[in-house]
């Protein structure tokens, strides 16, 4: 039996690590609900990263590893954001893992 999360009264399946089972079921509220479970309040800065990850997945069909994420965020959103200190301040459980989970993506390839 898969675990479920409650999003706006809808039950969505997640895997044993909390990643959304079907990324097509994602709605922005999924991120809000997951963030609440992690005691996080999502700000505009969080959404920049979440939306960026979704676009990256749309284009390349993978969730980037954390080093790659840091690099490409720097390229796309500015050098001041392309460093792990900034990204960890937003996503304390690991920018790639936690942000990908909020974005409804699978666990990044190359993450242990």
């Amino acid at each position: 039996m898969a675990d479920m999360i409650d999003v706006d009264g809808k039950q969505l399946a997640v895997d044993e690590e909390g990643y959304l089972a079907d990324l097509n079921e994602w709605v922005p509220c999924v991120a809000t609900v997951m963030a609440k479970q992690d005691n996080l309040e999502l700000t505009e800065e969080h959404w920049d990263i979440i939306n960026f990850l979704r676009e990256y997945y749309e284009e390349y069909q993978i969730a980037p590893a954390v080093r790659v994420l840091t690099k490409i965020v720097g390229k796309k959103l500015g050098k001041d954001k392309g460093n792990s200190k900034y990204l960890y301040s937003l996503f304390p459980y690991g920018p790639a893992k936690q942000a990908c989970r909020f974005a409804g993506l699978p666990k990044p390839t190359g993450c242990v």
Partner: protein
Amino acid sequence: MSEIVKKILYLNRKAPYGTIYAWESLEVVLISAAFDQVVSLMFMDDGVYQLVKGQDPSGIGMKNFSSTYRTLGDYEVKNVYVDRDSLAARGLTADNLVQIAWEDVDTGEEMENIVTVIDASRGCELMAEADVVFSF
């Protein structure tokens, strides 16, 4: 992060769908590249089909991972080789293949396309130069 850096060559010889080899190889490539190894890829035989652009495997219920190859530049993979004879035997040229851009954010060094078509003799050299060759 690993302290031992090896030159790893991934040799891809099978068609993208029908077996799991192509996708598994790509996943291993992304993982090893993320751990600071010097990674090169070589495509030969039916493996050249993995890089053909404009794929649509939705009819067989498979994920189209051909676009994932284009992220290799972000993973600091700088060398992607394709065997010329294998392309020719299948009526393909470099124009049929995806392009993979590469950029060093620190130095600003850029390459528009790291996919290189090579002759068999160069392929032999590359295999001899590698510390490890993984064949998929």
